């Protein structure tokens, strides 16, 4: 082989060597943004105990599902709602036998920590009046799970029509949380777990569980997954050791 050919071939070999699928020990997880703090801790524990290498990528469930649809090399998907998991199942992108409902969450109404506002959540409660000239920070109800739950809740309580013109739809629930924390919005709707994680907000009231579909976090291995460790990780996430972590962060059981 001539020198020129060698110069061309070696980089190609290196590229092949660096591709993710070549490293069977690494597990790639795509998870909903609201799971971040808790899942990071669980994964750390898992990796330390087993010596595995897990990489987690957080984002909006909708965006993550789309990425998997387009061939992103993920092993495990943790969604913030059932709809996007069903979306992938329909397209035969999951190993459906591995699918479990991992966690549950609650929806809360929050305000900046310094705010003194009080509110009882009941049908027809004066949400629009309480907002005044400000806006309600929430994840985009068109496509983000937290936003969809929020809209469902407000609709069932009969205040959606009055409040819908006053919302500030964010790209994800953490952005909505930040807006309230910065006092840019007087009220917001986020997951209970998010509210607990942010010191600069306080929970005004919790939405009744009956006002919205159950907030369930399904998990499943992807159809393309070749990682042996992914299965072990999913098992760990359902174990009592992991449960302690989930509870500490404010998540509940799925059933």
């Amino acid at each position, binding site marked *: 082989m001539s020198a020129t050919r060698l110069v061309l071939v070696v980089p190609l070999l290196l590229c092949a060597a660096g591709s993710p699928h070549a490293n069977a020990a690494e597990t790639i997880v795509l998870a909903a943004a609201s799971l971040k703090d808790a899942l990071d801790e669980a994964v750390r524990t898992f990796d330390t105990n087993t010596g595995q290498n897990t990489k987690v990528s957080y984002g909006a469930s909708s965006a993550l599902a789309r990425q998997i649809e387009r061939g992103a090399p993920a092993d495990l998907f943790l969604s913030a709602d059932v709809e996007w998991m069903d979306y992938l199942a329909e397209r035969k992108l999951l190993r459906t036998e591995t699918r479990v409902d991992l966690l549950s969450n609650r929806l809360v109404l929050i305000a900046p920590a310094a705010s003194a506002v009080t509110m009882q959540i009941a049908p027809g409660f004066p949400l629009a009046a309480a907002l005044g000239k400000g806006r309600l920070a929430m994840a*985009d109800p068109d496509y983000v799970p937290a936003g969809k739950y929020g809209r469902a809740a407000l609709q069932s309580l009969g205040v959606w029509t009055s409040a819908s013109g006053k919302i500030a739809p964010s790209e994800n629930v953490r952005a909505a949380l930040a807006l309230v924390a910065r006092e*840019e919005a007087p009220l917001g709707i986020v997951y209970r777990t998010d509210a607990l994680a942010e010191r600069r907000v306080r929970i005004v009231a919790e939405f009744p569980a009956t006002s919205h579909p159950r907030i369930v976090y399904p998990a499943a291995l992807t159809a393309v997954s070749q990682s042996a460790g992914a299965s072990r990780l999913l098992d760990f996430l359902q174990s009592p050791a992991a449960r302690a972590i989930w509870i500490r962060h404010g998540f509940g059981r799925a059933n």
Partner: protein
Amino acid sequence: MLPTLEELQILGLSLKVAVWSVLVSLPFAVAAAYSLARTNFPGKTLFDAAVHLPLVLPPVVVGYFLLLLFGRRGPVGVLLEEWFGVVVMFKWTGAALAAGVMGFPLMVRAVRLSFEAIDRRLEAAASTLGAGRFAVFATVTLPLALPGIFTGMLLSFARGLGEFGATITFVSNIPGETRTLPLAIYTYTQVPGGDEPALRLSLLAVALSLAALFVSEVMVRRATRRIMGDDADGRH
């Protein structure tokens, strides 16, 4: 495959945001370009770097800084509200601000180049004819810089029309208020079954960009012809 009323409204909002962002940032860009092209002052390099920041920072970071500064709790936002009663948070004006900031370095670069290309001796001649500094700028410098100014306006308009990251981070994705074309297209791509409206809006965006390019070409050519003194133009 015609656009729906809602899609036309999104188009209208995007145009409003982009046009206002260009118009409002224009005097600032001209001033910045002039000071960079013609003057020397302590901290000039720093100023030049600051002007170019939106070009090199990730748009989401720029959006975050805008939130910090112009939000209702931000120092500039508080001033704007107290002195002028102006609030940009969650408003189309905020989207225009984001678009204007992102397009600013492009406008400044183009205008600065055209200022630097002007023959200073013409300005000296104007002053011997009685024109003070401001008059020289208005009657000689500015008209001769028009081609560069139009180019800068187009670049900024195009950048503002496509602005996403800073807008969504700063003023969220409020339909009818801050849901510009790129944000709307993004939203549709996130919804199952939203591919068709997303495609329609994308084609609209392409058509809009081509139209803007065409208009800008015409303006630049006219201005250049005027400067070159083409009698065939018949204008004076």
